[in-house]
């Protein structure tokens, strides 16, 4: 698909990606209040998965990689492969904030943010 074809879907992407990101943050808040909230964890997993796929399709690969890491972490938690800790929650929050910042950059016709550093931090927790 050509760049021109994809650019015509940018507005749609930003609208849905922001919705997914907002929902991600809401689920994060629920989990920070109750780490046993499986529904919030599952929602976080689905939202991160959607963000990853959308971003990959639109060519925002760093955002896709970061969302993919959030997806993997939440899947690991859901599968009881890793436990929720305070330090993990801090990094997840930072990751979500970087997703928001990157979307804002894209909206302002700037490059997506370089989020490699936070992706690497999350990767340390992935099983």
């Amino acid at each position, binding site marked *: *698909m050509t760049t021109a074809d*994809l650019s015509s*879907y940018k507005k*749609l*992407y930003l*609208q*849905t*990606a922001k*919705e*997914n990101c907002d929902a991600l943050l809401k689920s994060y808040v629920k989990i920070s209040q109750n780490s046993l909230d499986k529904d919030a964890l*599952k*929602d976080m*997993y*689905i939202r991160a*998965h*959607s963000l*990853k*796929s*959308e971003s*990959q*399709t639109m060519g925002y690969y760093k955002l*896709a990689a970061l969302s*993919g890491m959030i997806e993997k972490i939440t899947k690991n938690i859901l599968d009881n492969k890793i436990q929720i800790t305070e330090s993990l929650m801090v990094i997840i929050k930072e990751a979500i904030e970087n997703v928001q910042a990157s979307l804002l950059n894209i909206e302002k016709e700037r490059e997506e943010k370089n989020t490699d550093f936070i992706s690497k931090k999350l990767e340390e927790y992935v099983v």
Partner: protein
Amino acid sequence: MKVLLIEDDKFFQKFYSAKLREQNIEVDVASDGEEGLLKMKQFNPDVVLLDLIMPKKDGFSVLETRSRNENLKRIPVIVFSSLDQEKDLEKAKNLGATDYIDKSFFNFDEIMVKISKMYNVNNTNI
């Protein structure tokens, strides 16, 4: 040709609906697995594009339910996901998925080739 897209993400619902309709394909959309199974019966599509990770009933559950229903089994299902784990793709295949498309690496020509192939195979066998 009728295609049912079972996909929870609004971006992909609109994106792929638009691209398929440009090809004069009749498209219906379901936002989760429960709605998807209902529409498979009501809309009677020629091909289903099925996302795997969805709320309520996921794509794996849809495939399981389909495998136990002779009428639904006749409808080819192309798993349409961005899973990057071989074991999940293997699971989908074992549950009866006819083919797989990685939606992250967009190639609409590939999608049309697979959909057309499924449609032709299914209509030849009638």
